[in-house]
């Protein structure tokens, strides 16, 4: 069991800056994120796209912003738990008991949800029947590539993940690559490689096709794909892999007894606290009159929620407001020299 003053759910810009604010005022905190990397939407959705509305930063990409925030919290050595989703949050006396999908547990007086639009989950194939094959014959990520060796594998998608795996698995499997249009959006070198392998008969390329049906008892036997012209083709295959990127889903947050409307959590604007004492929501996931889904708003919300956490984490102490420019205590926490 991990004990901490505050647990932050979400390692996007708002979660990271909230962590900074907590540490600055002398509280400890840990961060959990379902993605396997830090940065949230900035890293997952638009790492290369420039952002122009971060105060005092005329232009930076999602990746640069993330790296700057990581640098900013570096002095604090904050523990982050990546690739884990918080599944359970329940009351335990004065504290909240928190459990992740991997069974890790936390006890904390403060839970700060900085979850963006929810957790990132892979986008799945549309046909409902695909569910029964999931993690057996149908996968949305590859954890152990050896299971495909010598098998027939049908890969769907047009981005780098689909193309990279098509190239990689073509070395030891019979690969079909299926995409809804002729253009691929992956790196040019990989696209060229795929076409080269297709020409050499190492990859069977089907463009303008989409999955319409999956057939099999316990495991996948064949799939049906439909061309733009409505023609349907049946392909025998052992595995189907879908690489359609990630989608944000509210997920388990919906079950924690919070006031939720349209995938956002209602909060007050003093503490950014939800209807549950000691659970806060900041950043894109919170809502209040006038809410703007801007990164800068998330920073403000995190700063105020952090102050609110102080009361519950240190009930017998008085929070004292200090500036980073003049406070010796804060400079000590940051590990910088005082004048």
């Amino acid at each position: 069991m991990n004990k901490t003053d505050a647990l932050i759910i979400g390692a996007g810009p708002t979660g990271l800056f909230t962590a900074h604010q907590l540490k600055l005022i002398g509280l400890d905190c840990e961060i959990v994120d379902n993605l396997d990397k830090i940065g949230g939407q900035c890293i997952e959705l638009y790492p290369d796209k420039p952002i122009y509305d971060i105060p005092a930063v005329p232009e930076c990409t999602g990746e640069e912003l993330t790296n700057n925030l990581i640098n900013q919290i570096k002095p604090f050595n904050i523990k982050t738990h990546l690739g884990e989703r918080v599944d359970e949050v329940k009351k335990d006396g004065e504290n909240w008991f928190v459990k992740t999908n991997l069974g890790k547990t936390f006890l904390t007086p403060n839970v700060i949800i900085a979850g963006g639009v929810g957790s990132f989950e892979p986008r799945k194939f549309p046909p409902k029947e695909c569910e029964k094959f999931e993690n057996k014959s149908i996968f949305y990520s590859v954890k152990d590539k050896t299971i495909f060796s010598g098998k027939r594998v049908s890969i769907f998608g047009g981005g780098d993940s689909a193309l990279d795996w098509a190239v990689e698995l073509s070395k030891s499997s019979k690969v079909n690559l299926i995409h809804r249009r002729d253009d691929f959006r992956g790196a040019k070198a990989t696209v060229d490689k795929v076409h080269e392998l297709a020409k050499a008969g190492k990859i069977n390329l089907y463009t303008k096709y989409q999955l319409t049906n999956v057939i099999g008892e316990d495991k996948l036997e064949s799939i049906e794909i439909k061309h733009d012209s409505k023609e349907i083709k049946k392909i025998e295959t052992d595995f189907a892999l879908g690489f359609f990127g990630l989608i944000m889903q509210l997920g388990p947050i919906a079950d924690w007894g919070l006031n939720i409307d349209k995938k956002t959590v209602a909060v007050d604007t003093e503490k950014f606290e939800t209807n549950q004492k000691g659970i806060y929501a900041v950043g894109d996931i919170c809502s209040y009159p006038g809410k703007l889904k801007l990164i800068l708003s998330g920073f403000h919300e995190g700063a105020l929620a952090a102050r609110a956490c102080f009361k519950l984490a240190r009930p017998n102490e008085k929070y004292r407001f200090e500036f980073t420019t003049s406070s010796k205590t804060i400079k000590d926490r940051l590990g910088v020299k005082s004048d």
Partner: protein
Amino acid sequence: MPKITYNTHDNKTHTIEVQNGLTVMEGAVQNDIPGIDADCGGGMACATCHVYVDEDWVQKLPQKDDGEEDMLDMAFEPKKNSRLSCQIIVSDELDGLIVNIPSKQS
């Protein structure tokens, strides 16, 4: 103001006046039309404002950017008349536009 018609998956028709300059996505979200999630807020980064444009209107809309086509790869059941509604800006020329909202966005 131009009128935009949104047909939702439950066979309901919503015809709404949307101000010039707003996107078809914003028109839906501001008027609580179900089925448009717009998770990224109009940034062409999520494909959850996906609509099927009425066949008569497909050619009348401004062309898609490459980025929009890339995002549509990730949409739920994309078709030839698929568009991201956050990329369609309402103008007088679009008065009468009809879009169909898919059964789900993800």
